[in-house]
């Protein structure tokens, strides 16, 4: 049996406390009204005069254009001028309000990104675990207890996600614009989608997905534990069927979950391969975390039956699924870039213009780095190479979620500052605590699995 070391426990708790403090600071720093925003922008103007000048030039240009159009109607011109001035004032206020919403969204979006990131890791691990059962793989049973422990986070993580969605539904934040009745009233595109995008149905769907995942995980793990004490393979067969059933449910629910929780942040935009794209991101992050936790436990002597061939296999999965992620990322990007249809392409224009570095940086982290480092068969057996690449992949996929959520919620007001880092620390600490606590609940070797002997002697 594994016992949670007090050092690890303390580290996780410190992470959570520091993260929680940082999040509180993030919420305090967020402006509460328009005056705050004005002050903040005035303070910023001293730093960024150029952007302001650009804005003014834009305004001048608009005014000039306006003037030209109306030049031949001098009588109306005076009226229009007055109206124009009023309009400009209103426009200024509108802009401020827009910025206010973005800045108020910032700590919420930071929590949302981090909560989803860690949740999707455990969900990805659960999917990987089910794939191992359904494919009756012979190499992985020695890692089943690690996978079961990581997937334990699905319950607290899923509940947190649900609470966040409920809070959005209660209009405590503006993460989902389609939840704002005022926005919907003026937006015909969203109006046509309200049959799907309405708060009660949205929450019911989320509840169904989460309940399904919780239940499947509960029974998969319970059968796996019971198999240890069993005298025949009854529970293995049961788990095989359960895993196959879960994978069917998972593929449908995960796809819809990605439309609901991520794609609906941009309710004017849609992409058909989005579900797959989010899936590949969670799958590769999940496999990476399995590898990292296994290497950590092995280095502490808790997994004597795991050899470097198992690590090699996990690293191969990290490598392969990283490329799969890139394939989907590029397919989505290139199809939209190539056809350049305005209603689709705004999604990428806003990302490239305002998120240039994170948007393209994540492709380097998620594709180029693992491609070059994990291509060599020998490197895949070297623990520190796998750990290093694993950390890079996790950072890359955090940025991936960041790029999916932030442009729709905080727009150009993004920054990776106190709220963002604190949210990662908080959920990272919680994740570590839950996962390593779950590891203490069962022996680290699944005893009676029919493939356990093969797995222990696995050699590649």
């Amino acid at each position, binding site marked *: 049996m594994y016992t949670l070391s007090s050092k690890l426990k303390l580290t996780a708790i410190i992470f959570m406390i520091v993260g929680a403090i940082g999040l509180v600071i993030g919420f305090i720093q967020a402006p509460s009204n328009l005056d705050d925003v004005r002050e903040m922008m005035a303070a910023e103007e001293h730093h960024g005069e150029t952007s302001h000048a650009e804005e003014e030039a834009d305004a001048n240009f608009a005014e000039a254009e306006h003037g030209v159009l109306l030049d031949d109607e001098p009588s109306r011109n005076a009226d229009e001028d007055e109206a124009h001035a009023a309009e400009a004032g209103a426009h200024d206020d509108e802009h401020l309000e827009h910025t206010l919403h973005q800045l108020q969204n910032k700590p919420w979006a930071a929590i949302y990104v981090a909560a989803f990131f860690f949740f999707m890791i455990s969900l990805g691990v659960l999917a990987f675990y089910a794939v191992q059962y359904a494919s009756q793989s012979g190499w992985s049973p020695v890692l089943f207890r690690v996978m079961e422990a990581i997937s334990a986070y699905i319950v607290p993580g899923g509940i947190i996600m649900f609470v966040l969605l409920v809070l959005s539904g209660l209009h405590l934040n503006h993460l989902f614009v389609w939840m704002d009745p005022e926005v919907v009233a003026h937006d015909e595109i969203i109006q046509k989608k309200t049959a799907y995008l309405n708060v009660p149905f949205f929450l019911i769907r989320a509840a169904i997905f989460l309940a399904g995942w919780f239940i499947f995980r509960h029974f998969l793990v319970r059968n796996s534990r019971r198999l240890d004490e069993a005298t025949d393979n009854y529970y293995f067969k049961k788990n095989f069927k359960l895993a196959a059933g879960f994978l069917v449910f998972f593929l449908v629910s995960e796809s819809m979950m990605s439309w609901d929780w991520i794609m609906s942040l941009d309710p004017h935009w849609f992409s058909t391969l989005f579900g797959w794209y989010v899936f590949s991101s969670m799958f590769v992050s999940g496999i990476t975390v399995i590898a990292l936790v296994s290497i950590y436990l092995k280095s502490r002597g808790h997994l004597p039956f795991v050899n470097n061939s198992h690590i090699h296999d996990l690293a191969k999965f990290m490598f392969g699924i990283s490329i799969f992620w890139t394939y989907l990322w*590029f397919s989505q*990007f*290139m199809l939209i*870039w*190539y056809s*350049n249809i305005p209603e689709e392409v705004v999604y990428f224009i806003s990302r490239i213009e305002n998120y240039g570095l994170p948007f393209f940086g994540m492709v380097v982290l998620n594709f180029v780095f693992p491609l070059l480092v994990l*291509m060599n*068969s020998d490197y895949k057996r070297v623990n520190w190479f796998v750990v290093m690449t694993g950390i890079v992949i996790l950072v890359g996929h955090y940025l991936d979620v960041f790029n999916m959520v932030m442009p729709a919620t905080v727009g150009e007001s993004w920054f990776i500052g106190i709220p963002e880092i604190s949210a990662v620390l908080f959920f990272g600490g919680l994740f570590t605590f839950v996962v390593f606590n779950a590891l203490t609940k069962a022996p680290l070797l699944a005893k009676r699995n029919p493939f356990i002997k093969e797995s222990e002697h696995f050699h590649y």
Partner: protein
Amino acid sequence: MASKVIHALYNDDDLLLQAVKQVREARYHIGEIYTPMPVHGLDKAMGLEPTRLAITSFLYGLVGLGVAVAMMNFIMIEDWPQDIGGKPSFSFLENLPAFVPIIFELTVFFAAHLMVITFYMRSKLWPFKQAENPDVRTTDDMFLMEVDVANHNVEDLTDFLYNTGAAEINLIDNK
């Protein structure tokens, strides 16, 4: 120089692997081994160097990448930068997504084909090549180990190979 070799035939790959280990321990020199199918772990038992074919493939892939980039850059950007359906042909980077499918395929094409050709050349395989099969049964169900006699006593060597479980032992004069 007329050297002599002994052909020891085995009818089981486990026996063969065992024999290879014993022959190497006894410091006899194994020339070649002929098997009807891949025997897992044979190269390790014989102490053969790992193949470098994968490394050549990676380098060929880089060549393919370079060829594709140079070609697309020259044709689409430098030589005749036309406006084709509004695609930005001003610089390579701006129009890169449109070139990626070609770059990818050419990388794979070069990596795969040149590696296969390298394999043929290194293992000396071509359509009208004379088969180098010492015993036709080795393509069906027998495993043949060729041991150099060199300056060893033929009698001792034969006895030794017999004890390793060889089903048949032939002394061959290499001309």
